[in-house]
């Protein structure tokens, strides 16, 4: 299918706004045609990982200069030649990065890797891109509004944008977001369109889901049940909060491919089950009862054998200010066990709040490390010798053990902090 372009878009494709914009349009047109999109939507809220790359990717493009320009052109724009990349004029944000800007040595990064990180960040900033360096842009200065067309990467942020806020974004990738930063266009497909946003399957929630732990478990179950479809959840879901949606969505996006969900009476496009489906409930009907809850917990905990925990990782997705305050409350007066490590990840913006509020200090005094920008899965950085880790995030439990070849436990934040302070995992499903 050939996409319908406006006169301005044709001119952009043909180079009227420079070579980089033309390359961006070429990628976006190939992508739109692959999707079967008819046209583009305008967007001025774009979150990606523009141009950042490890050294070996730069070296791969050595013939094109082996620098940020080469990577942005050849990799991000998937161009066959390197072109000059202009300063971005719209609202473009850089999501999570590869290391903490101060504690990178603790993460096992080399001087060379850090120098590369710094050089990339200077380029990002120099191109007019906001350095949020987080998977939670909505906690760090980019909260979209209902109906706003966005082009976001990061599955946990995408699902939150669509479901909790009513913003409109597909789960974009690096190449499409970097291109959209230049062209301010994304294919008018999927979640940009009303008809795509309706529920497809119903999930009856029969056990009380109230704490962040329970929301995370339900999310992991939901993704496994509906895969990449849009679920409508109805029943015993209580006490909604931004951080609970954050954990629910991150879990559902990793166990399945959920990019939008409805919770009847809770999320903005679901005043009722009927409204969420755009008519009568249809599709499959799943039940989340005690049996399903138990099975989900056991699935997440199927990759742990040893209860001697070397490493506790919190902050997936990046912790909010209230989660850091809760971690500080649980840690106050205690210390991390000599055989264990506790790393807590957040954004630079939220860390600034935690510094001002005192929670950062309490966390550090307990012997934990408060890190920004990245996480263990993204940076593939864990404390040396880690064999067994523990998480309060279903998403991180899903990813990190597979990536690092380690064992993992999933439990509550309290259980994780207890494990960090005792070196032993004593989690259980109550």
């Amino acid at each position: 299918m050939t996409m319908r372009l406006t006169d301005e878009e044709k001119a952009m494709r043909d180079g009227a706004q420079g070579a980089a914009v033309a390359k961006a349009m070429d990628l976006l047109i190939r992508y739109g045609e692959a999707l079967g999109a008819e046209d583009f939507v305008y967007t001025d809220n774009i979150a990606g990982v523009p141009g950042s790359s490890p050294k070996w990717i730069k070296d791969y493009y050595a013939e094109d200069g082996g620098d940020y320009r080469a990577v942005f052109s050849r990799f991000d724009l998937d161009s066959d030649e390197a072109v000059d990349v202009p300063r971005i004029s719209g609202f473009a944000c850089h999501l999570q990065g590869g290391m903490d800007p101060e504690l990178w040595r603790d993460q096992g990064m080399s001087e060379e890797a850090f120098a590369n990180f710094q050089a990339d960040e200077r380029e990002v900033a120099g191109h007019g891109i906001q350095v949020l360096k987080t998977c939670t842009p909505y906690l760090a200065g980019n909260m979209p509004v209902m109906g706003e067309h966005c082009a976001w990467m990061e599955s946990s942020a995408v699902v939150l944008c669509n479901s909790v806020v009513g913003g409109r974004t597909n789960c974009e990738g690096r190449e499409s977001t970097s291109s959209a930063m230049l062209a301010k266009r994304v294919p008018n497909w999927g979640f940009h369109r009303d008809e795509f946003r309706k529920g497809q399957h119903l999930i009856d929630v029969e056990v009380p889901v109230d704490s962040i732990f329970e929301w995370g478990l339900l999310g992991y179950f939901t993704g496994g049940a509906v895969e990449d479809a849009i679920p409508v959840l109805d029943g015993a879901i209580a006490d909604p909060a931004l951080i609970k949606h954050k954990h629910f969505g991150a879990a559902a996006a990793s166990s399945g491919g959920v990019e939008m969900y409805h919770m009847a009476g809770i999320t903005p496009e679901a005043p009722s089950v009927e409204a969420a489906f755009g008519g009568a409930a249809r599709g499959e009907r799943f039940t989340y009862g005690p049996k399903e809850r138990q099975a989900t917990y056991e699935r997440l905990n199927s990759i742990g054998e040893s209860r001697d925990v070397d490493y506790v990782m919190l902050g997936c997705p990046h912790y909010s200010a209230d989660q850091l305050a809760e971690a500080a409350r649980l840690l106050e007066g205690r210390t991390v066990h000599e055989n264990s490590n506790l790393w807590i990840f957040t954004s630079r913006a939220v860390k600034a709040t935690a510094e001002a509020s005192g929670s950062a200090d309490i966390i550090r005094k307990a012997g934990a490390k408060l890190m920004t920008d990245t996480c263990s899965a993204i940076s593939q950085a864990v404390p040396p010798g880690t064999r067994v880790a523990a998480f309060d995030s279903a998403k991180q439990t899903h990813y990190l053990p597979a990536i690092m070849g380690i064992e993992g436990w999933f439990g509550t934040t309290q259980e994780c902090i207890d494990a960090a302070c005792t070196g032993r995992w004593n989690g259980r499903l109550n």
Partner: protein
Amino acid sequence: MATVDVRSPDVVIRGRKVVGGVTEGEALVTREAISGWGGVNALKGEIIETHHELRGQSFAGKILVFPGAKGSSGWSVAFHTSRLAGKAPIGLLFNVMTTKAALGAVVLRVPSMTDFDTDPLEAIETGDWVRIDADSESVFVWKGGRP
């Protein structure tokens, strides 16, 4: 594609072009959706997801037949990186269109199709020989391997 067919294909499937071009090779089939970032080792061209039925298997040089993409938005980056590493699949056939799968196919630059008249997960098994002619929106399958 200089192969001279010694026999006509056992199955012909029609679908929609995602990325144009013609390719042929051995099929690697899974009934489970594939995660990109965090689910594959791009440098080895290998599935690593903990519970995945293809865990430990390589898709390098294969025609990957799968229901669709799931997981991280780093799907395209993972497969794009496999292209840089020379460990990419040579064609994609998938049922469910998503932005992850579409963008991944685009940056892999390999012939890819979707929207089939016959479910490729039913018609194609691992080891079958498959030719994707995305330009004419056709898939040809020889059961049991190279004809």
